[in-house]
């Protein structure tokens, strides 16, 4: 007792510390980071919400990634979810995952029928790795999943029809967060799906049972839609965005939807005028983004006497892609995939419970 009183202990950062200390250490983390917390209702998280981003640079992604695989990702609308880190997920085991998932789907579809794993079934599942999308060495490689259905009476050489596809990805994920995860965990926080809801539910349920993870819906809030609008507009000099379309919903009775389409050149000029505030070319700050949107809104107000800032931004689209409040995204051009995915990865990581 007396000895303890005199000596001041140094905090122990030993990675092999006991579990009891561990549970404390994690709370430490949330405390430390909480100092950057933006306490807004709804979106609360221990991770930092970025206030500036790098300007998107057009980059031919097909140089790093197999063009066929890129073709699978672009020009389709994906529904977004977030998922907590996978326990003991191995990129080397994809083949066996394919077998297990297909057996699982069949057994769930036919309640009360036991299925041998690895048997030929009505469904075929393909897991594949999309190499090259990861930006840092902490990012896990993207995993692409396809479910093909076999027609019962189809000819043998008939191509199987893709009934569902989805992919799990992590691009430029928060390094501190990824580093804090133990080795047994793989974080692929962003899950994009396309296909019948019933299959999505089954795939999620299989992942939850197999890798002890949890899925939740991922919406894209107004701020992030504004980010996307600005990022895409900023691309206009390199790729013609053709139009900038924004959809607001105003809280009137009944609710009023306002679709606001801007000529690409006008949008770019407005954006460029905002950009001059900043001297560094590389980064875009949140102030520039809000300034840009405010500019659009005040222009609208001048003409129609409707203040759009009273409503909420629901959807934006350009020729480069579109994005909806409810968590739908479509990327039309492969050149800006990493920028968009980085933003979405951030959104997904902000949803992590720990």
């Amino acid at each position, binding site marked *: *007792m*007396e*000895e*303890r*009183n*005199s000596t*001041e*202990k*140094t*905090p*122990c950062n*030993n990675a092999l*510390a006991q*579990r*009891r*200390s*561990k*549970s*404390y*250490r*994690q*709370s*430490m983390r949330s*405390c*430390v980071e*909480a*100092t950057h917390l933006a*306490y807004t209702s*709804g979106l*609360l*998280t*221990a991770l930092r919400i970025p206030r500036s981003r790098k300007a998107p640079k057009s980059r031919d992604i097909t140089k790093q990634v197999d063009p066929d695989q890129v073709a699978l990702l672009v020009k389709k609308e994906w529904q977004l979810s977030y998922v907590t*880190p996978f*326990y*003991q997920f191995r990129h080397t085991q994809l083949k066996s995952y394919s077998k*297990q998932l297909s*057996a*699982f789907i069949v*057994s*769930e579809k036919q*309640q*009360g*029928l*036991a*299925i*041998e*794993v690895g048997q030929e079934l009505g469904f075929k599942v393909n897991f594949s790795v999309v190499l090259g999308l990861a930006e840092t060495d902490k990012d896990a490689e993207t995993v692409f999943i396809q479910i093909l259905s076999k027609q019962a009476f189809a000819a043998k050489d008939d191509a199987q029809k893709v009934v569902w596809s989805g992919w799990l990805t992590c691009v430029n994920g928060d390094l501190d967060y990824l580093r804090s995860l*133990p080795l047994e*965990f793989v974080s692929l926080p962003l899950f994009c799906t396309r296909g019948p809801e019933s299959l999505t539910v089954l795939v999620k349920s299989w992942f939850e*049972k*197999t*890798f*002890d*993870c*949890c899925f*939740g819906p991922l919406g894209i809030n107004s701020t992030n839609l504004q980010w996307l609008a600005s990022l895409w507009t900023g691309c206009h000099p390199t790729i013609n965005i053709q139009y900038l379309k924004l959809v607001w919903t105003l809280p009137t009775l009944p609710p009023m939807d306002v679709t606001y389409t801007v000529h690409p050149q006008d949008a770019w000029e407005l954006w460029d005028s905002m950009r001059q505030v900043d001297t560094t070319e590389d980064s875009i700050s949140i102030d520039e983004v809000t300034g840009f949107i405010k500019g659009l809104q005040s222009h609208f107000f001048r003409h129609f006497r409707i203040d759009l800032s009273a409503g909420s931004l629901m959807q934006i689209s350009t020729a480069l892609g579109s994005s909806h409040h409810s968590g739908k995204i479509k990327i039309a051009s492969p050149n800006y995939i990493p920028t968009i995915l980085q933003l979405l990865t951030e959104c997904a990581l902000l*949803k*992590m*419970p*720990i």
Partner: protein
Amino acid sequence: MAKASNLTRTDLDSSFESYLSVSSRTSNRSLRVAEKERRKSQTGDPFVLALKYFSEVEAGTPCSGNDVLERNLVLVERVGLSRGLPPEAISVMLDYAMSLRMGGVMCVRVLKFLIPATVVPQEAVVRAVSWLCVGKIAISTQVLFLRWVLTVFDMIDSKDHLRAIYGFIFSFVTEESLSPYICHLLYLLTRRESVRPFRVRKLLDLQTKMGRQPFLLLLLSLYKVFYPELVTLALPSRMRSGFKNHNSTWKVALSAVQKRNNGQVSSDISLTLGLKDKTNSRKRKFHHLELPSLSSSIQSNSSSRSRKVFPLEQLHSFPQLLDNLHCIELPSQMGSLLGSSLALCYLDYVQDDSAFLRLNFWLGHALHEEFLFCSGDGGSGSSSEALHFLNRLLSTQHFLQEGFSSTEGFLYKFLNVWDGSLLRPQILGLLSDIPVVPSSCISQLLFEPLMQLFFTSTLFFKCSVIDCLNSMLLKWLTWHSVYALEDGLDISLNSHTPMNMTLSGFMDSVMELVRFVGRLATVGLQLEGCHSLLLSFILDFYETVCDMFLKYGLPLVVMPPVGVFYPALFATDPVSVDRLGYIMYRYKKNLTSAKCQQQETKQAFHISRQTYQEFNHYLLFMVSCLWNSKMFLPGMAIEVDQELLALSKVPEPWTSFDLIHHPAFLGCALDFHHKCWPERKDIDLNSIKAGKQWDWYPEFLFSQGFQGLQQFVQSSINRRSAAGINGQRGSQPTNR
């Protein structure tokens, strides 16, 4: 088999005798002696003779018109149905029946009265199964036999030999009318090593042939438990209940026999597959609050196939847990552990970081989705599932005596959006479980949101917040005292403390918490007009605080603020004043022993001079106010201008809070006055102050149950026996 038929008479005799003596151990000794006498006098027990007959009878002996057979059979039957048959008799009769030495009819008849008294020898069953392989027995009789085995399964003395012939038993599964029973038997016998790919395939073939039969599915689902990578299936909810009982033939007789034999062995075969109790509530679109069911994971299975593992699904009792502690496998979804206290025992035992992390991910996700993201079906408040979930979480945390870090992280966020009424008891309960928060961020994470809620809510909320903070402090102090002790034993293990925190860091946090409650209490008492309920909760808190040094070994003493001390001292209910007395008494004890220790060891932990001064100040005031009837004097804590006092026209205002005139004790004083001078009509309380009465009056108060006051008076006031009316200030710890 040969051995069984070679049973000699003496064999049977002696063993049966021992059986009898066992069964009648509880009965009257003289009765037993008498029975022995009677049996000795007989040439041989007819029952034993009957058994001998059945063990020796030649195959092919005719049974119709065979009086000897009939007599012996009736005898054994009667014993079987009334008392149950001893193990040897079971063995003999089963062999006799299954060998069909006298045909199928006899076999059925024997099987029907084969009620075991104690246990069934497993060799008998193994032999009977081998007779089954001969293939002469009628199918219906085979079914009867299997049903009998299933009924008495729990009474079979050991099962390892039966497991050794798993393959033989499995081969019967293709027999259509047998397979329901065979599957059930296999289900009871299956171990991890008995699950083989070819068996899985066989069962799946059967499934294609016979359709979705529950018995096949139940067996396959057990196979899935052991080897999820071999077979997968979704069990329909109607099938969750398990196998049917097949004990109808023997049920009545068996239970009668068991009741007679004190029912030591239970044969009630009830199997349940689904550990999960399905809530009957409406289907929710998102079921993040539903506990996942226990199931073994594919992952670790494939990696450790050679190692012996014990899936948690198979765990049903604590002894089982102890036996398999080294090879228990965690389930595929850690969330499922929350439902089972056995599993939680195990979780507490393995200090597995990633297991805890998985659990925290699941838990945090559920809490976030339900209460923060609200992506479920609209409002979360009304749902009883949320209530159920939080209660379960609370009981889990209490079981583990530790809060989960995901709960903690969730609470910090939730406090900012909480309305203070949604699931209040649960939320505050969870809040009191959080581990020590570093003093650098305690204010932002905890105090600011709590303060807002506190000042804008009802009296009862204020009380429950103080109560919550009190139990939080208690838990922190308990952790400290437990782990500080461990550290003292082994210094190298000092990363083992719950908070990984320096002592000074811990003290800072505790100090912050105590001061925060002081502020809350001060303003809360003002807002609520010194409500005695609130005051009572606040005094609860200070009862914890005043004993931190002596009870929990924390070298820290914090005095209550004036905003708590004076309202308690001037409270109108005697209970509060009494408790304040107790608290002051404990403060004094703590401070004096801290001072002693400091002087003895020269080890400098500093309870600051200011703390001593504060204490002395309070003590001085309390003694002079309660005992010496001195108040409002210059130099005291409360100074009031004499002229102002005169304006109030209260006679002798300085006496208004002494033990006699204090509003809290006025009733007692009147009572005492009445007892002293029952005949006096005009009441003069001041007369209590004189003479013997002043000595008696405190005693009278103490006898009314004011123990705290008693301890305070005895420790801080030197009463001069009779002479002095005014007590003297007692010895006080000073810092000089």
